[in-house]
């Protein structure tokens, strides 16, 4: 019954979404205030209805109602409760419902907190947002109904894919969707501004927090996915340049560019048309990502339900969105007048360089991701485009981004002087080069990757410290004054320092792990010992056992260094009997300087030896640590008073005293 009510609520939500898409837009065009005001209650209504539908589905999953088709297919009575809940979005239908829920949530957020938004802009933005929600609700209702019943209902379910029974993957999709959908809100504001023909600092102040939020969520979502692949899949890698990974990476790059260009709109009243274009592109790439994931047109390590009807439906949404918004852009953008004048060497110039580099890098990823599709269409050859392509074509642009970052950050608005900036940065550059030189010397002239990568990372991180110094007037100011200034720096600045520094940490981890990873694959029998990069690995034994809903074989290893026990590691091979699916649980001894990573492979056909794969991964954790710091930077920036959602409403409040 609740399930049917959920379905009914979703159908009603579709009707509300259509209403919300049309009425406020017409009202804004005609200047009818009451029609425009209809947007906000409709948005809240839509959210409540979809919220109810989603709650009904969660209820079906938690109570294990196997008469619901997707519950029967993706859950099981043996599953721990957490994964019963996360099973709701651990499948195609449920995850689309989650997506629509977040779309409606953001619409309702703007409706509820956007009291100071100009009525017309708010009505139009909510209308566009509702068009997107209506399209995806229709997609669910017509191609992917999560409320389908099975008759007769099976006694037990088919189990959630064991690889998804993991805390990282339980929370990874919600974060990604918050990111994708956050960009939809930015898109809605961009289209609304195009219709209005007006982009100003107030608009940018509304758009920036949404972009920032979307970017933070994408950062966390991507990092979680990467981390999950690292510890759960057991192949020891953390990024595969897989189409589905790229699908989330492209919007992240463009959102990063948008984040920076919106600053120029806000502070300098320039780059308006470009910012609007980036907003359109960022969301379009999110849609491309959804299309790639759901249609299965590209071969990926991720497995998909290949229902052609779904692919076509999303392609239609994608086509209408991109063609519609770009047509509108071509028509209205020339009216966007930018005002702020600036020299090429200036903060604005630096931000433009950042934007161009990130956009071109996203274009390279896009080309590589879609190339197999294009190539097969042209001459039928099946190709795969993997890491070598991206390392060659993508990395150079990132290197340029990194080189330019500390310089651009220190340039003043309007007109800058590179000589003066270098006068501050020279010691950071010298230290970075020295580090690179030392590393190069120590590893006796091998690949340049490690020295160059580490030097770039050091340049970024030291650059942040130089910038902090510059902001608080060091070295001239007295320590007391400097400290006072340090405490009073706006949150947005701290956000910038953290985000840039975090990027440096990630680069350091990537360079170190790529250049210095030690891998060892061998046959080993219980009782045997061997060395790996200074660590002695002792293979003690293998034991059998049973987990909550799986059987396992567990390897017992003791790792020594200089005779001392460093770690006891227990990699597992699991078998989930419901689906008959085996999984590999790597054992990872994490550390700030290195990860030890052990995988138990298959037993030899004859004899008692096992395939054992061991890695020593220097600085591996810095990759995700850096991503976390970046995300925290974004959040800190988001709490800056100036960008708080509805900040203008609270401007009457006295400024908080920052000094304590």
């Amino acid at each position: 019954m609740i399930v049917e009510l959920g379905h009914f609520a979703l159908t009603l939500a579709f009707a509300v979404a259509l209403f919300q898409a049309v009425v406020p837009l017409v009202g804004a065009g005609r200047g009818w205030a009451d029609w425009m005001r209809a947007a906000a209650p409709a948005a809240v209504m839509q959210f409540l209805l979809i919220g109810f539908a989603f709650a009904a589905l969660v209820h079906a999953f938690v109570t294990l109602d196997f008469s619901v088709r997707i519950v029967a297919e993706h859950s099981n009575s043996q599953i721990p409760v957490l994964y019963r809940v996360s099973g709701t979005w651990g499948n195609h239908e449920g995850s689309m419902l989650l997506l629509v829920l977040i779309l409606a949530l953001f619409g309702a957020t703007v409706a509820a907190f956007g009291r100071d938004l100009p009525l017309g802009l708010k009505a139009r933005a909510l209308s566009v947002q509702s068009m997107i929600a209506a399209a995806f609700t229709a997609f669910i209702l017509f191609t992917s109904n999560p409320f389908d019943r099975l008759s007769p209902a099976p006694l037990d379910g088919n189990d959630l894919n064991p690889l998804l029974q993991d805390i990282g993957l339980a929370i990874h999709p919600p974060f990604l969707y918050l990111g994708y959908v956050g960009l939809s809100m930015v898109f809605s504001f961009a289209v609304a501004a195009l219709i209005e023909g007006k982009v100003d600092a107030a608009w940018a102040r509304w758009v920036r927090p949404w972009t920032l939020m979307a970017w933070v969520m994408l950062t966390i979502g991507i990092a979680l996915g990467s981390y999950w692949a690292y510890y759960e899949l057991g192949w020891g890698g953390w990024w595969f340049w897989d189409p589905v990974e790229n699908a989330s990476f492209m919007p992240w790059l463009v959102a990063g560019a948008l984040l920076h260009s919106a600053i120029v709109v806000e502070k300098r009243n320039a780059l308006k048309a470009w910012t609007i274009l980036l907003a359109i592109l960022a969301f379009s790439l999110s849609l491309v990502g959804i299309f790639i994931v759901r249609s299965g047109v590209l071969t990926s390590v991720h497995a998909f339900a290949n229902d052609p009807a779904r692919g076509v439906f999303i392609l239609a949404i994608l086509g209408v969105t991109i063609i519609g918004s770009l047509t509108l852009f071509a028509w209205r953008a020339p009216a966007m007048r930018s005002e702020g004048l600036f020299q090429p060497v200036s903060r604005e110039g630096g931000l433009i360089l950042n934007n161009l580099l990130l956009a071109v890098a996203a274009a390279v990823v896009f080309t590589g991701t879609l190339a197999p599709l294009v190539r097969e269409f042209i001459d039928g050859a099946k190709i795969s485009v993997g890491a070598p392509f991206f390392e060659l074509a993508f990395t150079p642009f990132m290197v340029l981004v990194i080189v330019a970052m500390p310089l651009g950050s220190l340039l003043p608005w309007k007109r800058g002087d590179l000589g003066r900036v270098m006068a501050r940065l020279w010691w950071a550059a010298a230290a970075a080069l020295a580090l690179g030189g030392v590393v190069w010397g120590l590893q006796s002239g091998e690949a340049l990757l490690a020295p160059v990568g580490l030097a770039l990372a050091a340049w970024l991180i030291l650059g942040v410290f130089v910038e902090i110094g510059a902001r608080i007037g060091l070295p001239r100011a007295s320590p007391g004054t400097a400290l006072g200034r340090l405490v009073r720096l706006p949150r947005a600045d701290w956000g910038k320092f953290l985000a840039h520094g975090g990027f440096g940490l990630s680069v350091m981890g990537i360079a170190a792990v790529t250049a210095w990873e030690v891998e060892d694959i061998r046959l080993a029998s219980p009782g045997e010992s061997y060395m790996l990069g200074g660590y002695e690995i002792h293979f003690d034994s293998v034991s059998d056992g049973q987990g909550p809903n799986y059987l396992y074989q567990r390897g017992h290893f003791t790792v020594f260094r200089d005779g001392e026990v460093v770690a006891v590691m227990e990699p597992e091979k699991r078998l989930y009997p419901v689906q008959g699916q085996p999984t590999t649980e790597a054992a990872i001894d994490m550390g700030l300087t290195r990860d030890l990573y052990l995988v138990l492979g298959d037993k030899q056909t004859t004899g008692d030896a096992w395939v054992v794969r061991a890695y020593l991964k220097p600085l591996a954790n810095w990759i995700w640590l850096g991503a976390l710091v970046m995300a925290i930077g974004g959040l800190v920036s988001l709490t800056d008073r100036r960008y708080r959602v509805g900040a203008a409403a609270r401007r009457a409040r006295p400024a908080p005293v920052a000094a304590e």
Partner: protein
Amino acid sequence: MTTKKTRRIQMMVLGAVLLGASALLVSFAFRDAIVFFFSPTELLAEQRRPDQLLRVGGLVVTGSLVRGESETATATFEITDGNATVAVSFTGVLPDLFAEGQGVVTEGYLRDGAFVATEVLAKHDENYIPREVVQALKAQGHWEGEEDAGADTGAGGGSDPYGG
């Protein structure tokens, strides 16, 4: 001195330079850094350079898998598309969903008529057969699944709808 027009020209020149550089890098990378996929029939039909990285995919021949035969943890198995069969050797840990009779894609080099795999690609879902493999089987008339590139033959849906 810097008018809006000259600034716009500067931006365009910079954009054009970067786009040109990316086009150059991309075309360079396309020549050297992409990997072609072949079915066993296609793979053996032509001479292949022993240093060319290739992908080959098909079904793992039932009864052909020998795990950890030598001291070096090398597994051997055969891949077929129903017409031709190629022997594959792989040193490492086979992915969880690797099994005889299942679809598989391997990446590596063809040396003396045998395929030396550097990677055996893992799939997340036991019902998933790589699209290329489906097409390779179809080309040999050995595909018995649904007409559409039916990677999904089982419980009504791939189980991993996630990006990232």
